[in-house]
């Protein structure tokens, strides 16, 4: 039972890490290596709004989601747009931005282990004899709602449909009057806000540490590679595969191998099915 409960929690956390990354790549084919840095940045924005500016916690969270989204859009509009389509340059540029953000935070004094965000609901409960705290249960519930909301957004709103159009065929979308650059900016803003959303749910469980930005990026990449880069359903499924594999590893093999699972998953996917579980477009390229 503990495997089921904590496997699910771990999987939802991985899905939350990866959704923003998958969304940006799925729409604009941009591997946003600044994703983990934006996740941590949003945590510090919330912390600063709450503790330095004295805002209400809920207002601080909304502010953080908004500001991180804007920062993501600005990063695309002023930096990444210049290297769009050049994959290696996109990776280098976005990773350089990640380094600038994370090292800038560190340089600004955001170091140590005392930066924390309060949990939404304090306390814990017991499910089938296993103790679980409310914040983790809330993260699972909100994570599930988020996935449903994203699905609805991309199917029943004009912007969502435009984003899907871009993801399916950029040239066809252009012919239908969809501005691909504007949509890419929107996607980057939305993806950054999703990183911030994940941070708001998961950071209260621990502390805001600059270094974890790199871990978040690695986990997001692992989930997206296994799921098929750019595929949201693939990302969710891969999150559950890796999430449960990590927990099973901790239980039956050893906790110090848990990070190896994510990296091993990337290697195995690239050897056995480079397109990932749901990477349909890449799969077509592979067949050709």
């Amino acid at each position, binding site marked *: 039972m*503990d495997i089921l409960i*904590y496997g699910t*929690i*771990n999987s939802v*956390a991985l899905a939350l890490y990866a959704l923003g990354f998958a969304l940006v790549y799925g729409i604009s084919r941009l591997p946003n290596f600044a994703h983990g840095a934006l996740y941590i940045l949003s945590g510090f924005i919330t912390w600063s709004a709450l503790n330095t500016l004295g805002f209400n916690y809920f207002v601080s969270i909304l502010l953080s989601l908004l500001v991180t989204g804007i920062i993501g859009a600005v990063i695309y509009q002023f930096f990444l747009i210049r290297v769009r389509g050049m994959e290696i340059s996109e990776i280098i540029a976005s990773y350089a931005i990640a380094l600038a953000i994370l090292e800038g935070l*560190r340089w600004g004094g955001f*170091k*140590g*282990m*005392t*930066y*924390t965000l*309060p949990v939404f609901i*304090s*306390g*814990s409960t017991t499910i089938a004899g*296993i*103790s*679980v*705290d409310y*914040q983790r249960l809330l993260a699972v519930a909100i994570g599930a709602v988020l996935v449903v909301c994203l699905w609805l957004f991309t199917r029943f709103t004009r912007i969502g449909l435009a984003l899907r159009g871009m993801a399916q065929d950029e040239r066809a979308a252009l012919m239908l009057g969809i501005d691909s650059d504007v949509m890419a900016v929107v996607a980057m803003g939305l993806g950054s806000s999703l990183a911030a959303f994940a941070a708001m749910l998961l950071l209260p*469980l*621990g*502390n805001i*540490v*600059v*270094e*974890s930005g*790199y*871990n978040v990026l690695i986990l997001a990449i692992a989930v997206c590679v296994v799921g098929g880069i750019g595929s949201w359903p693939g990302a969710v499924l891969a999150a559950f595969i890796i999430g449960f594999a990590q*927990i099973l590893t*901790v*239980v039956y093999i*050893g*906790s*110090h191998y*848990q*990070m190896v699972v994510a990296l091993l998953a990337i290697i195995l996917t690239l050897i056995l099915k480079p397109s990932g579980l749901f990477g349909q477009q890449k799969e077509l390229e592979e067949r050709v």
Partner: protein
Amino acid sequence: MKTRPINMLIVFLMTVALTLSAGTVRAEKPILIGCPLSTAFLYGWDAERGVTLAVEEINAAGGVDVGGGQKRLFKVETIDTRDLEPGVPVSEALLAVEKLILDKKVDFIVGGPVRSEAALAAMPLLSKYKKVSILTTGVLTPKYHAMVAKQYDKFKYCFRIHGEAKNLVGEIFANFNELKEKYGLNNLFIIAQDVSHARGAANIIKDIATKKGWNVTGLEIYPTGATDFSIGLLKAKETKTDIINIWMDMPESAILLKQWYDMQIPALPFGSTLAAAEQPGFWKATDGKGEYTLCNVVNAGNAPSTATPWTMKFYDAYTDRWGVEPEGLGTSSSYMAVYVLKDAIERAGSLDSDKVVSALEKTDMMGVYGRIRFDPKSHQVIPSTDPKEGAVGSILQWQDGKRIVVYPKSIATGEILLPPWMKK
């Protein structure tokens, strides 16, 4: 009134003489102390602050007498080794040390590298350049001073002024035994970070505990940067563990303690190395969830006590200077290392490495955490539970928002309490 030229000349000469005599200290080239530290982490920045405070105090008092009445000031040159960061290779720390020696041309090394692996790898470098180094933070591996003892001629430039893993193990078992006698605790679960000193110490604890009749219910090793400890904690709970012994210096160890509280694990968290709980900000960072957590801050002075007359003097001076109380392992020892170095240089009357090594070996001074002496063969600071005899450690417990020293008894200000959900 007309001023005579001779009077003007006398005034001029006196002014020059006064200026020159006042500037004797300042005209000399400062003694450069190189500090290779992982400055983004507790064991790095607290060491830097400790060194800086001592240097400021010594310089304000006139500097260091290098012999022949020649006084020179100390100057600190810090470099970020990043060796506590996950995924950063040891070679980065070695480059940092080499840069301090070759580029910054430091006279002495004080502080790190902080990670045991990096400090061990830096030993041949120190030997190659004959640079006297006093380790003050982080490095707990017994291998460090064992290597000095084994190859004295090669590694004689390496000293360590803070406690090491074997001392910590002894201190921990003194407390475990007390808890066993007082509350009947007997089941021990060990959680360690996947780094050299923690893995080594955890295995030593496991072996010794088993020999001493403890029931070791498990040993979990987590990678640096791990953020979920729920399965390990559940294992501890399922095996009816009484004490969870923790060896972690990563910031994420705060998550472990939050989870321990949220899951109401009926076991006492006893950190041997537990960076998160050492800091004064721990209480606020965990919303008080870390209450009852024990941790070893390695040397007195890193938590409030009256080990020696200098302890609280240092404690207050640090708090005034940095706006925060001494924060954990590496604070008092880094501060003390500068005073010990000053004392050795003055006795040696020179900055020559071999002469300073000889002087350091003869160090005998009452410091912040007791009597400071080095073992002449291994260059490890001599430990004791009595501050009059040697360097004393400090184990603290978080009680009602305060860091209460519970060990050694000679300096303790309180006793270990159990959380209400595990009262025996």
